[in-house]
């Protein structure tokens, strides 16, 4: 049974479990890793009652591979991991992008590189999420900052991965994953399912425009589908030597996400038009939010989705601003992309507050940095 509507006091990782179940997840494959293990444990407990399957695989490569296989069986499928496991999954993430498989990956980020800080938070996997597998591809990634968003954005991950047939990521971190807080489960949820091949629907008019997302041929229904990670035509014919087939395919895979930024991007803006704007996401936005809500001269753009890059709200925040501060728990990953967009929009001063070590920047650290920038 999915969780009844109401208010709950739960951990972030548990909220993610409830969000997944509410979205209709039917398959989870996982491998124990701190700080994401509670998601696997929660689904091991809960999936059975939902006619779903929980599987503990031999490694993270097997997890993501099994999840992709389950998706082709028609199930909404997900896995959850952290840095080291995420690195192992990169190969199959590229496969999911190339074969247009809807899958959801939760990455509860911890400090890297390598084994790093298993119990501490970081935002070190932001660029890996976008560029981790080889070749040109696009993904959709959300960054929750609260327990509530661990639920809400898990639902969005499923919805957008189904809608665009892409791997979707919940880029959480140890701070949000282990945070306890209020979860409000709404009466009604907007749940999107993939468009199946061969089924005529009444809502076809709402499909992604320009025919960029093809209907999904579920296995075992006589479609004789060929699914491959090699360069292929629309009918699945392998054409690795045909430059036009390759170019058309890779461009379409990228375009279907990039042309729909408006539909995908989610953000929160506080104090729009302020001369000083902070741009942040995930748990590193929490300290910044406290500063922005208390100081009328400081505004905040908190990105809830980070890939594809929300260029429009960043440019909007930058247009009226004299200075922008980017807060991240890494040495500057989204910073350089934000800086490019902000400077193109006319904001000259874009600086980074970078915090390493496992804890998000505190309000006083944010204020101190703003002071050094001449803002407060």
């Amino acid at each position, binding site marked *: 049974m999915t969780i009844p509507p109401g208010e709950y006091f739960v951990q972030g990782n548990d909220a993610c479990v409830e969000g997944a179940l509410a979205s209709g997840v*039917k*398959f989870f*494959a996982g491998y124990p890793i701190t700080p994401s293990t509670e998601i696997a444990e929660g689904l091991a407990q809960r999936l*059975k009652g939902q*006619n779903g*399957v929980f*599987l503990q*695989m*031999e*490694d993270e*490569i*097997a*997890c993501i*591979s*099994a*999840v*992709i*296989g*389950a*998706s*082709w*069986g*028609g*199930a909404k*499928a997900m896995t959850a991991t952290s840095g080291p496991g995420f690195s192992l999954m990169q*190969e*199959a993430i590229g*496969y999911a992008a190339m074969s247009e498989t809807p899958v959801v990956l939760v990455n509860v980020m911890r400090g890297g590189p390598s084994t790093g800080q298993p119990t501490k938070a970081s935002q070190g996997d932001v660029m890996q999420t976008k560029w981790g597998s080889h070749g040109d591809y696009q993904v959709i990634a959300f960054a929750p900052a609260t327990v509530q968003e661990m639920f809400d954005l898990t639902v969005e991950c499923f919805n957008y991965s189904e809608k665009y047939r892409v791997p979707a990521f919940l880029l959480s971190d140890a701070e949000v994953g282990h945070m306890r807080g209020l979860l409000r489960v709404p009466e009604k949820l907007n749940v999107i399912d993939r468009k199946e091949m061969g089924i005529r629907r009444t809502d076809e008019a709402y499909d992604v425009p320009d025919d960029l997302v093809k209907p999904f*041929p579920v*296995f*075992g*229904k*006589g*479609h*004789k*589908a*060929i*699914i*491959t*990670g*090699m360069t292929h035509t629309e009918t*699945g*014919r*392998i054409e690795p030597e045909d430059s036009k087939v390759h170019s058309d395919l890779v461009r379409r895979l990228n375009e279907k996400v990039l042309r729909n930024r408006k539909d995908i991007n989610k953000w929160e803006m506080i104090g729009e038009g302020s001369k000083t704007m902070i741009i942040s996401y995930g748990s590193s936005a929490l300290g910044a939010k406290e500063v922005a809500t208390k100081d009328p001269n400081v505004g905040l753009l908190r990105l809830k989705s980070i890939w594809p890059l929300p260029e429009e709200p960043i440019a909007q925040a930058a247009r009226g601003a004299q200075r922008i501060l980017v807060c991240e728990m890494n040495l500057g990953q989204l910073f350089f992309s934000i800086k490019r967009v902000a400077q193109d929009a006319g904001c000259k001063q874009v600086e980074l507050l970078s915090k390493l070590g496992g804890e998000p920047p505190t309000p006083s650290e944010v204020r101190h940095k703003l002071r050094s920038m001449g803002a407060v």
Partner: protein
Amino acid sequence: MDIFEFYRKDRWPHVFCPGCGNGTVMNCFFRAFNEAGLSLDNTVFVGGIGCSSRVPLYINSDALHTTHGRAIAFATGLKLAKPGLKVVVFTGDGDLGAIGGNHFINGCRRNVDMTVICINNNIYGMTGGQASITTPHDFQSTTTPYGNKEYPFDLAEIAVAAGANYVARWTTRQVHELTKSMKSALQKRGFALVEVVSQCPTNFGRRNKMADPSQMLEWFKSNTVRRDKAKSAELDHVDLNLAGQITVGEFVDRNRECYEELIGVEKHG
């Protein structure tokens, strides 16, 4: 079913070299599949990467052509999400035993219902003839120009030890026995492996004084020993050396409960 209904004729010509053993394996498989009375519409063929893993793309059914070594992991997810499907994996020695070794042994252990056909040609054929984990000791390949100093894996014995429900090994020379074992594997509930020692005259034979496919089949004929006829424990061992032998036969046939039954997923429908 007619053999031409089984193949995707529109995908011809295929990529396999003249003299390749894949055609023999596919023909034996078609016969076994047909005799077992299975339906193509309800079967998914999964492959990894390599010559053997291209086979699913030529069969007139749903095909999942995956990443290198991971076919069994993909197949596990697919089968558990849709237990009504018949899942058949085509894989090779490098795909199954080297890069996919961990998925292979854990697949046998987990015992999810699937049929795995491993075409073992003792070489990385598609990339031009590098040594694999089943290349015999002292044989030549492009990466063992002074002879292979490692000793080969015994895939069938690994599968038995890891817990597969059905394991058999034949060569492309024993087509009748191979077909019979493939049928048994398809009818078995649980993890079933048929290893086919197959010829790659282009990239294996050519460098090991067997450039003619018939020479390789002669090698298979004169060096195979049936498992039930092997007299001692010493003989009951394969190292695929010309001086040694290839043990063939059914290695195990048992009925451990398969994973779907154990977790009750079959009732979901």
